[in-house]
């Protein structure tokens, strides 16, 4: 597969694996976590983000659209999805950047060329490339091609995954991945279903298989107050990771910087009442993990 949908390429990524990295964000995710801070990553298809405050009302987007898919109503910008062919002309012409297209059709060459630009930093810092999402395994063919090309170029590779994918997919890529960043969001299956939309069974099984396979894995646990920060869940998480003989755990404090993104995407935000976890809470949770002998880091 030589083309995929990328929604961001982040340079100087310093929290997605060792060293200075470039993180390539692939669009599309089977989960819908309530706290997701990249809601624009959930759908595989391209989407428009519209910044009302930036729009100067020039209507150039409407004028340039060959499909006549764009109009303005009292809510502002409207894109008729049945007509739009995502030719990207409207976003290109928008002078103020009010209209932004999330998701770019990118060729394998384009992505690898962009990733290679920072080679000097990877080599200096022991960094490399991280494929994240969404869930990068959703675009398994493209991901596989990206990983092959990265390994050919001698880059250190990491994949940031929810683990919610068939074992076959993981098996297909695992030997080209130097490090998995693997999320555990909740140990209670019912709650997992409520807050992410899917069961955790497959996720936990895949993690076990990957660990048995001897792959290098950093487990990442987002801490969402009142959802998964209770002692019981934390202890169950610890026990599970411990049983797999994994050592490196990152606990990531929930942050609410994505609230505005939901608005711009016209999506509802379900946990607007939840506060960012306090430092003491993060320390307390870190201590529980440390009690199990893990190398624990808060953040990234």
């Amino acid at each position: 597969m030589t083309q995929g949908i990328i929604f961001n390429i982040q340079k100087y990524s310093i929290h997605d694996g060792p060293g200075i990295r470039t993180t390539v964000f692939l669009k599309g995710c089977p989960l819908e976590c309530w706290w997701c801070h990249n809601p624009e990553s959930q759908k595989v298809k391209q989407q428009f983000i519209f910044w009302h405050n930036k729009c100067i009302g020039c209507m150039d987007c409407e004028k340039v659209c060959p499909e006549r898919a764009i109009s303005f109503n009292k809510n502002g910008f409207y894109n008729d999805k049945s007509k739009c062919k995502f030719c990207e002309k409207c976003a290109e012409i928008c002078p103020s950047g009010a209209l932004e297209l999330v998701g770019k059709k990118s060729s394998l060459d384009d992505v690898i060329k962009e990733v290679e630009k920072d080679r000097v930093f990877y080599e200096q810092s022991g960094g490399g490339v991280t494929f994240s999402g969404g869930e990068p395994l959703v675009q398994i063919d493209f991901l596989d091609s990206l990983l092959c090309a990265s390994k050919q170029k001698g880059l250190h590779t990491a994949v940031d995954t929810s683990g919610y994918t068939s074992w076959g997919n993981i098996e297909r890529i695992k030997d080209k991945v130097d490090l998995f960043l693997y999320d555990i969001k909740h140990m209670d299956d019912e709650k997992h279903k409520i807050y992410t939309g899917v069961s955790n069974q497959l996720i936990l099984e895949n993690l076990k298989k990957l660990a048995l396979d001897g792959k290098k894995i950093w487990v990442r646990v987002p801490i969402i107050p009142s959802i998964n920060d209770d002692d019981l869940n934390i202890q169950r998480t610890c026990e599970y990771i411990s049983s797999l003989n994994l050592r490196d755990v990152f606990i990531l404090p929930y942050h609410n910087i994505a609230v505005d993104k939901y608005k711009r995407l016209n999506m509802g935000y379900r946990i607007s009442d939840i506060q960012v976890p306090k430092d003491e809470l993060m320390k307390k949770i870190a201590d529980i993990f440390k009690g199990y002998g893990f190398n624990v880091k808060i953040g990234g």
Partner: protein
Amino acid sequence: MKRGMNERVQKLRQQSLTTKPRISMERAVLVTQAYKKYAGKVSIPVLRALTFKYLCENKTICINDGELIVGERGPAPQATPTYPELCCHTLEDLKIMDEREKISFKVDEESEKIQEKVIIPYWKGKSIRDLIFDQMTQEWKDCYEAGIFTEFMEQRAPGHTVEDGKIYKKGFLDFKKEIEKEIEKLDFINDPEAYDKQEQLKAMAISCDAIIRFAERHAEKAEEMAKNETNPVRKKELEEIAKVCRYVPAHAPRNFREALQMYWFVHLSVITELNTWDSFCPGKLDQHLYPFYKKGLEDGTLTRDKAKELLECFWVKFNNQPAPPKVGITLEESGTYTDFCNINIGGIKPDGSDGVNDVSYLLLEIIEDMRILQPSTNVQISRKNPDEFIIKAAEVIREGMGFPSVFNTDAVVEELLRQGKSLEDARCGGTSGCVEVGCFGKEAYILTGYFNLVKVLEITLHNGIDPRTGKKIGIETGDPTKFNSLDELLGAFKKQLHHFIEIKVRGNNVIERIYAKYMPATFMSIIIDDCIKKAKDYNAGGARYNSRYIQAVGIGSITDCLSAIQYHVFDKKNLSFEKLMEILNANFEGYEKERLLLLNKTPKYGNDDDYADNIMIKVFNIAHDEINDRSTVNGGKYRIEMLPTTCHVYFGAVCGATPDGRKAGVPLSEGISPVQGADKNGPTAVIKSASKMDHLKTGGTLLNQKFTPKILEGREGLEKMKDLIRAYFKLDGHHIQFNVVNADTLRDAQKNPEKYNNLIVRVAGYSDYFNNLNKNLQDEIIERTEHQRF
């Protein structure tokens, strides 16, 4: 382990920080007396030397309570002299200095009276400034007023040089002997310059006497104070001061303390003789001091704490001497109290080995403790230096004062070698001022003025006319709306640039000779090789190496302007050239859509995007080829430098609207940094873009980066900073400096300055109190992209 400053240092520091800079007329009066006494009776070099000696013999000697290293340029800390032989201020100038909101100097009534009755009557029409402006052509003046370039030497003397270590091995009695030997060798039969050489050497010998006498007077004063001192501890200290001042600078220092005092007398002498740019600088202080430090620890005469206290007393002395007052455009281009003494820490030794030692780490600790503007400091990073040294420096940088800045020693050496210096001389070199490379102790590397690249483009776009005034100051290079490609436009730009550089260089050649003939620096010449051997003054080409710089400003801005033209006019045809000119001439009024398009939808420099970066390379090469390797009149070569100090703000103020979406009057980009806010891909992309310029062909480049404190948290944050630095330097980057402060903090500081009296930020090649910056510069720093990642 951090110990902080002791009580003595705290007091001295506090005194330095809370005393308001004021004008002292003492030097002006003494210089006038000396000229009245000697002018016309002796040769010019001897006149200058006798004037310097007169100052040393008659100026007020100041020993501040509690201090261990002594000597002030003025009669007291922050009392700042004027240099009427260079620039005779009008009464209006004094009034402005006194009243201006930023970088003010108190001027009392008495001083004003002296200026009116004594100084102006003698110096009016006779100062170097008068001489320079009298000699400049009308076209030079037109360009100067239009903001094409600035002129460094119109109020301040050339200097831009650094001590190399010889003063720790030789005293001024030794120098005097050397000078006398050279006089003996003069051949009046065969050498047509023998007389000139004799006068120069005589003047240098007089200058040796002068500094020795200056120190003796400190000894006398200390002895007198000791006699009257009732506190036995202080009494002993004063006696010790007297002992030190009786020994140095006549002789080479024997210990750590004498070494510091030796340097300080030399420093004071350089900045008393003339108001040299970048004051003076001890250069590789850690390497110079290390033998004394080591010996002191070994023989038990020194402890680490004692060394630290002495160094901190030494630090305060720099901060007590604000840059001499500037007015007019010189103030615009360098609006700061900082006088650019920039101490080098780390780097390599003359044999090429790792130069980091215990004193290097001690100096880093002192920077963090002291938190004062002066002296500026930098770390010199070679691939041979340990990572730990960078980490320690990064820890200090993280504190957010902009100190120390970071230089690539290996690139510095290559730059100097490219300029034809010997390997050993290159390794003894480093950087000073903001970012300038030089062979310490052996080179006059003089900045001659900033050069406004964007203004030249603006004039090109108007076919030779400056749209701000309607005056035709350029040449006709064709109606740009008829151009069919960017290369055609660049061709026209190249011709305009040539025209303006020639005007600048013509002016420089006159000014260089004016200083050579009328304003020799006979003291400074003693300590810069090979002035004694050549019997030639520093200002006349006596140094072993002579470089003159023209500092190009606005490379980021001009790149984005040209990229916008290439992209929107030639490639995408979103706008016709006529339309673009119409929009610019209207300063975007009625064209907000077009402005946003140019601003937001143009490939810009600083994003590792070859579309824009290749244009940067072309413009840089045009400017480099125009300037580099031109000969100077005193036997040197011209080089290009890429730094702005505060000139990007002034240069922006004289430029109309530009094709990158910038409105008229807004500051230009600074150094080789991207336009404020144009870099959207993070610090690695900025570094990649910046490194596409061939830094080794310059005499220095300046790259500013702003980080939020969060990104540098923990050991890991420091490691990442170190890796960024190492990677940039692998790519031959010359220099990088960091502002570690949140934009929110700066905005709050702008609103509530009283809360932020101690907030020091990086400007460009130096740090300054945020409160000392004018509003435009404050805004500009806030605008610089802040790198933060979650």
